[in-house]
């Protein structure tokens, strides 16, 4: 269900000084996190609906909430995908997009089909998510410089190049 009320209510609860300062008991911290997570999930649908309406495209849209720790099932598994950047600021921005990928070479194009510079590099922090067991990172990161208009969005298409070997994610990474 698409609604922003769940997140609004969770944010209201999190105005309590314990949530702001982190002085709550552990089980309360867990509940704050749960409420915010529920709110975020409901808002994802709101964002997707808005982007469907604004862009008019028929892509299946996904949001990767674990992108901050370089996990995104879409970019790691698809040979072609689109990246949409919504800019909440009232000025044009430039942003370095970093997404986890399995392959070693990709083509990135803007909405007009113009190819952009991109760079693929091995992930660095990956080994730390394996409960302390060090292992050689097997997944790469794709970097490209994107821009977005004020309070608007831009779209980029990423395509895996031919001969680009894609490997499935190790199951424990996906679980984590």
């Amino acid at each position, binding site marked *: 269900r698409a609604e922003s009320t769940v997140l609004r209510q969770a944010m209201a609860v999190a105005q309590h000084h314990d949530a702001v*300062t*982190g*002085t*709550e*008991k*552990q089980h309360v*911290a867990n509940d704050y996190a749960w409420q915010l997570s529920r709110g975020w999930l409901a808002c994802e649908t709101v*964002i*997707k609906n808005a*982007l469907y309406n604004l862009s008019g*495209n*028929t*892509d*299946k*849209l*996904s*949001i*990767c909430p674990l*992108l*901050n*720790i370089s996990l*995104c099932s*879409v*970019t790691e598994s*698809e040979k*072609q*995908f*689109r*990246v*949409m*950047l*919504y*800019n*909440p*600021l009232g000025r044009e*921005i*430039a*942003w*370095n*997009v970093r*997404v986890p990928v399995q392959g070693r070479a990709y083509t990135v194009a803007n909405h007009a089909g113009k190819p952009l*510079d*991109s*760079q693929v*590099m*091995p992930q*660095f*922090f990956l080994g*730390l*998510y394996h*409960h*302390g067991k*060090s292992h050689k990172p097997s997944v790469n990161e794709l*970097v*490209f*410089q994107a821009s*977005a208009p004020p309070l608007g969005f831009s*779209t980029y298409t990423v395509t895996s190049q031919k001969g680009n070997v894609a490997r499935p994610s190790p199951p424990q990474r996906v679980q984590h």
Partner: protein
Amino acid sequence: QEVIVIQNEHLQLTFNGTTGLLSSMKNLDSGLFLPVVQNFYWYQGSKGNAENIQTSGAYIFRPNVSTPLPISPKAQLDVVKGRLVEEVRQTFSPWCQQVVRLYQGSRHAEFEWHVGSIPIVDHLGREIITRFDTPLRTKGLFLTDANGREMLTRRRNFRPTWKLNNSEPVAGNYYPITSTLAMKDEKAQVTLVTDRSQGGSSMKDGSLELMIHRRLLFDDFRGVGEALNETGANGQGLTIRGRHLLFLAPPDSSARLSRLAGELQLSEPQLVFGTLHKKSR
């Protein structure tokens, strides 16, 4: 190598090949050069002592000594250079790593750190900081933001409206950093922009520090009734990843740079990914 250098059009960072630590920063536009050493340290959380039973906990920051210990004096290095980004990857310990990046066209250096789970096998509470040491003559002054709006000048061991008797030499000089911590002299300003609210200070001239993670083993008797020892689903302490932006610029032009970057940190773009439906494909 003795020296490792990464650079873009605006900045150049030098790392000491022996210690693996950042050793200097140069603003290529203004020609400003500043030796900067950055490392991660930890304060040991107080268990209380004969003078005062107060422990370090969720409400109270009370390290047992004023000098933090380095997590490691050296970092293992890995360097990746490409057309869009050059980065130095530092491993300080199995639970503390960092990537220092210079993106093409960027006027700041990005420090992405990854800390946790903080070990407690020795039964010591740890409060982890990142610290930038420079030779800037800051005369006991530094700047912190007031909820991202006005920048306030702070002076060590001083309050503007009463005579301070500082009984906590570290905690008494810590201030909330909502987005920006800075220091300057006549020629240069060093500014740190955070991606979240943190505590920070300048414990000596030319030095800036930010607290990035804490794991403590005692309750601080202020009401929470638990030690600040948060664990994840796997029972281990929390792992935290975050970002600091470092600017070096003349004082006159620093605010404009860091303010715009701070705004973008706070309201970063939302990424949404689309996969083509079979029909449209």
